[in-house]
């Protein structure tokens, strides 16, 4: 039993490593927007797309209601996908927004990389959904897949738990919300 405990502690230690990602939240016109950028994965993504392999990422934004004696309640979830398909011989990279279907070509690998690692001004949830008396957090996760497919199979549940981009508390101003409701 002691051995199990030691192993468990080591594993939880591995999972509990601090991330150096950047996540910002702001409320604009009654909508919660999020800006997030993953610095840690840039090198890897650049290496992958630079070597010609397609790459697909999914950004997942979860709004959770904080509860004291129970698991946090999920209030809203937004999942956005982006994809980069390289063409090495022409040295062009196809940028594809899986959520909106927008396609773009670029000759700059860094631009392709930033296309995957940067999410700007993402509308997550309407403030009217949230109760001012409750405490909410916004959890952001980044799921990275090599290739063009999403790979959301049961095996991926084990193989890719996603990268934690951090958890940001949502401060809901009651007066503002009252005005929005009116």
């Amino acid at each position, binding site marked *: 039993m002691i*051995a*199990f405990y*030691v*192993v468990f502690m*080591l*594993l939880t230690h*591995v*999972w509990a490593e601090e991330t150096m990602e950047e996540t910002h939240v702001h409320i604009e016109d009654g909508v919660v927007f999020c800006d997030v950028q993953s610095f840690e994965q840039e090198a890897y993504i650049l*290496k*992958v797309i630079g*070597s*010609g*392999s397609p790459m697909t990422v999914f950004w997942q934004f979860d709004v959770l209601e904080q509860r004291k004696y129970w698991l946090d309640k999920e209030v809203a979830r937004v999942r956005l996908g982006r994809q980069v398909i390289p*063409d*090495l*011989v*022409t*040295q*062009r990279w196809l940028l594809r927004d899986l959520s909106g279907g927008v396609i*773009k*070509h670029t000759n700059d690998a860094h631009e392709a990389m930033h296309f995957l690692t940067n999410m700007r001004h993402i509308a997550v949830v309407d403030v009217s959904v949230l109760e001012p008396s409750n405490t909410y957090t916004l959890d952001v996760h980044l799921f*990275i897949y*090599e290739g063009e497919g999403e790979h959301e199979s049961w*095996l991926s549940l*084990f*193989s*890719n*738990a996603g*990268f934690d981009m951090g958890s940001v508390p949502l401060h809901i101003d009651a007066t503002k919300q009252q005005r929005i409701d009116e």
Partner: protein
Amino acid sequence: MVGDIQWLTQWVRFLPFVVVLFLSVLMYYVWPTHDYFGSSYLNWVNVGLLLALALAAFVFGIRNFVSKGTSVGLHLRTKLVTIMVLMVLVPSTILQITANQVITKGLDVWFDVRVDNLLDKAMSLAQGFYADIEADMEHSLKQVIRDDNFPALEVTPWGALVLNQYMEKLLHKYDWDRLELFDASERLIASVHKQPEHADALQSMETKPITSAGRLSIALGRYTVDHWAREDGEYVVGYLPLYSQRRLIGILRAEVKLPSEIISSARSIEADYRSYRELDRHRQGIQKTFMHTLMIAMTLIVCVAGMLALVFARRLTAPVEELATALEKVKSGNFDVLVAVDSKDELASLAASFNSMIAQLKYNMDTLTATQHELTNALVSSRQRQYVLENLLANLYSGVILLDASGDIRLMNETCKALLMLSEHKGDKTSIYDFSEAHLKPVLSFFETLQTQALDDLQQELVITHHLQSVKILARGTLLGSEDDVFSGWLLVFDDITQLAEAQRHRAWAEVAQRLAHEIKNPLTPIKLSTERVKRRFREQVDDVRVFDTCTDAVINQVERLQRLLADFSNLATLPKPKMELVSIASLLQELEELYSPYSQLTFEGMPRGEVYCDPDQIRQVLINLIDNALATKAHVRVYVEMTDEQIRFYVQDDGAGIDENIKEHIFEPYFSTKAEGSGLGLAIAQRISEEHHGQLQLLSASSPTRFCIWLPNVKLRTKGGELDDSNPGS
């Protein structure tokens, strides 16, 4: 050696937990990290297998620990399984390590830097080809812009022929495959192209809309080069916006189809390059995949080996367990066990031998039990007989001595010891020849007579005198068994016949005395009467009256003396049975005090309240006898009484000269007297009366002051019927 085995046994009990620890550490190392981008299901398979193994080992260890090794054969089975698993685990581990090294080296060779450089160069060639085509396109478009005829070109409806001729010229000049002209509204105005090589290529002649690159060209106001990849091949497309007086009047699109062979090669290089880089990027993952695959195989092999070992160990230890269980039953006394013999191997032979041994053991045990039962019964019977014999001998009034052939005493009861006065020498006598004391000489002599004369039985009367106490014994000896018998010896039986002889003597004497008294008493009265008559009638006629009176008085006195003597004789011989009644002690003594009132030297001290159960006439006679004897000393006489719970003691004490030590032993014998006129029967009669009252007359002190005591049982000890309780020691 035994200690080592015990230590090993204890260690084996903890082995499953060591295995659990080892598997846990292994699980930690194979646990998939979350920055692992390859396929990690192999890791999870490994983790699952290791977890299952760890749980199995843990459960096994707990069961083993809880059972505390009480299960028969568990240790042996554990050892066998452990050894077999280790036999598989050790080579598998070595194989795993070796394979890991081989895989690592193989990957190093696979991802050699030369291959890397080669692929880079090939990729550069492919990219250079595309870049050259695009550069050519750009250069051609630049040349079109610089063409002197180009500004004169006006797009007019009537100038279509001229336009086509000019575009044909450009097509051939720059070796384009297709050239199209669109107006500002992106409508096709003119199109020229080379002849298709195949008829089915006509479909490819269809005009495609302007792409984003074309719009970008319009927006930028300069040429752009784009790349198309269509089903019929890949194209390099160049867009050139046409302006007139700074107004967009059209857009020119030139296409060059890339050679399919080169494209195919370039795409193949790209695919290989991509695969190689992907593999290179997943190099560690590949290595882990191989290692995990091997580990899964090894774990499965160990599992299978463990299960096979378990099955084998069970089959191997089952007969041993059965034997051990049977041995435990035998150990607890159950011999009704039979071990199954199912095969023909050595274990079956061992089981058959065990069954045979147990059968023989059971037969021996049954025989032993039966013998023990018989011996127990015999012992119980013997002890019962011995107990009965000992009790019989202890309660016998006869003394018994059992002698063996050598004269050693095998048995002698307490009565015999008391009879032969051996109490002081208890335990000293182990042989008849130890009877060396003077008073035992007759006994030894009796046995020697019996032994030396080889008599079957012998009966003699023996007199044993010890400390002035004489005991008359009837001794009977009997020869037991012969030399051929189990036991041979002699049985000597002694009976105290002192009282019997005394009684016989007394009865004979009393009869004689009665006869004599009767014969003598009868003529005495006529003699006395005749003498008195003669004295009265002839006293006046005799010459010498004094002599006559003397003679006649002497006759009369002697006759009277003879009559008194005969009366005493008669009393002693025919003493009547006492008429017992409760008599007040005070009244009894009061009568005596009144009787002896003239004697001033006699004092009665104390008149205790109480009663004595006796014949008052006989007791009074005894006391008178004692008082008379005491008064004869002319000294002071004291009479007093003491009462205890058991006895009432009458004391008569005088301050006379005392009784000579030489005669004090004979004063209670009949006809013994120190007085000339005494008959010598007074104390004898007194003692007999005491004995008739279950009491005793004793001389407590012979020297001055002389003290006699007659004690009688206290009335409290009598039963309701008036009879004495014989069980009382004082009776």
